[in-house]
């Protein structure tokens, strides 16, 4: 099994400050792992996600994503790497408000050739997007509605579809259930994990709600990584 994420003696410090804002001694996530990452506010969660997605670069140590050392890539290459290999789900308001549901789902294929090719391998691009949405319970009549015309729960499921479009190896979800109520939350996580399983992607699910940990293979806490 290859490694999806491998971190060794990582330190990150904001420019012009003296205190280290994040350090991770060791973290290994295998491909196909479903990982729950406990990150209460102030734990450096945002910083860690910025580093994993290549928005910022670390000062010391190493981060390898899918065997690639992020520090060796330029900013542009890191942006492309993220487009090609990582699907991201935000807490809420995931969708561009002026695009319809389908166009929001197609968005990653515009930025990544790899995901574009993957998505249209078995069926036409639009068809893939529609199937993905349907399997997430977004009916066809909603596909041409804009983000503001559908419910928050539906928006989050569209966000899953977008993150999975073109089968990126890694899905990162940043508190995607915080805007949902208890029942919707459990259904959402099951749906997310089912879809991730189908493509054998790796998922890193970040939350401050420890009660969700039971859905995952592995559970980690950011505070304990240092």
């Amino acid at each position, binding site marked *: 099994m290859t490694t999806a994420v491998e971190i060794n003696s990582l330190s990150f410090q904001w420019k012009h400050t003296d205190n280290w804002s994040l350090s991770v001694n060791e973290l290994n996530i295998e491909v196909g792992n479903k990982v729950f990452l406990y990150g209460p506010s102030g734990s450096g969660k*945002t910083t860690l*996600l*910025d580093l994993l*997605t290549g*928005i*910022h670069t670390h000062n010391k140590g190493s981060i390898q994503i899918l065997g690639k050392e992020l520090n060796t890539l330029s*900013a*542009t290459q890191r*942006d*492309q790497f*993220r*487009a*090609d290999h990582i699907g*991201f789900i*935000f807490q809420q*308001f*995931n*969708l*561009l*408000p*002026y*695009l319809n549901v389908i*166009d929001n789902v*197609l*968005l*990653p294929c*515009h*930025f*990544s050739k790899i995901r574009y090719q993957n998505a249209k391998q078995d069926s036409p691009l639009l068809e893939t997007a529609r199937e993905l949405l349907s399997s997430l319970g977004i009916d066809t009549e909603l596909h041409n509605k804009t983000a503001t015309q559908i419910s928050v729960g539906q928006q989050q499921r569209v966000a899953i579809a*977008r993150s999975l479009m073109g089968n990126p190896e890694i899905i990162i979800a*940043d508190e995607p259930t915080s805007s949902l109520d208890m029942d919707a939350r459990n259904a959402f996580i099951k749906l997310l994990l089912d879809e991730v399983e189908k493509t054998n992607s790796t998922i890193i699910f970040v939350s401050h709600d420890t009660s969700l940990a039971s859905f995952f293979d592995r559970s980690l806490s950011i505070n304990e990584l240092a």
Partner: protein
Amino acid sequence: MNMFYKLISKSLWNRRTSVILTLLSIALSISLLAGVEHLRREAKDSFTKTISGTDLIIGARSGQVNLLLYSVFRIGNATNNISWESYKDIASGKNIKWTIPISLGDSHKGFRVMGTTQDYFEHYRYGNKMALSFKQGKQFQHVYDAVLGHQVAKELGYEIGQKIVLSHGLGKVSFSKHDDKPFEIVGILEPTGTPIDRTIHISLAGIEAIHIDWQHGAKIPGLSISAEDALKQDLTPKAITAVFVGLKSKVATFSLQRKINNYRQEPLIAIIPGIALVQLWQILSVIENLLLVISAFVVLTGLTGMITTLLAGLNERRREMAILRSVGAKPFYIFLLLMTESVLLTVIGCLLGIAIMFFILTILKPILITQYGLFIGINPINSYILIIIALVIALSAILGLIPSLIAFRRSLKDGLSIRN
């Protein structure tokens, strides 16, 4: 549709209220700038085409511009006259093809009266060598016949056959009238867009006849010669105001001009209309340039307004930028989105502005012709306007750097975190 343009168009549509207002302010400022520029060129064009085909204008010695103003534009007064003998002498020169003597000094309800010969209708040209043509009636034949310019007939509501009384001097309200010798309207000219439209034409003999019992600008007391009696007298003019001259060969223009400027018998001046017109226009160009500068500033205001709107919108669009970054957009992509937005808005604004101007000119054209005798071409598209638009678009790209660079830096710093 390409996703890039979809993002721009859908995003703009999403903000349509502010976008439409921005477009409108750019469009209006462009239509003002292009309109001023267009009218300026058209006015210059029609101005310099007030007279054509005339090689020299000769008058009593004064300034170039002064002679041009009173002989062609009916503005101001001649300081002196040319004697009939001098005129005859010049007109018989070997290079002379035709001459049109004119005599000014009388008026009718504020419109100037010009005494001339029938050669005027034959040889006088304006615009692109266009001859005068009659809307109604014909040239004057008799001493008491008058031919009206288009505007005179229109404003005063005159028709063929009507009798009019001329006044001595140029005031709109005159107390010394030639009421003993009324003139009959025998012809009305087509509009020309030149001062001819505001002129009443009579024969030189007519001018002579109404002044036969006058001296030094007043009636000679006790002497009254009736209209019929005047006809029996010799009505050859003693003096005229100016002469339009056409030459057989243009090459002779300068030598004849020199000859006339050095005329022994009488102090005269000869001007070349084209050169004098350009000189006169240069005096007016200060105002024209001022107008252009003002409208350029209005365009700058329009563009600044657009940038302000885009900048104000950036804060609300931070989430949009974070989402785009999360799916892999590079900061440069965000930069391009913003740049394209400002240039696209300006391009659409410019097109809209030209359309507005086109529309206004179409409405205005008949009014300008009938009310002011101004001929304005409707088509505002020329290379000059295109250069202006290209400059405005280039300027919008430069100004667009401000919001684009801010968005670029912000998306670099914010990354995937959404700050509201």
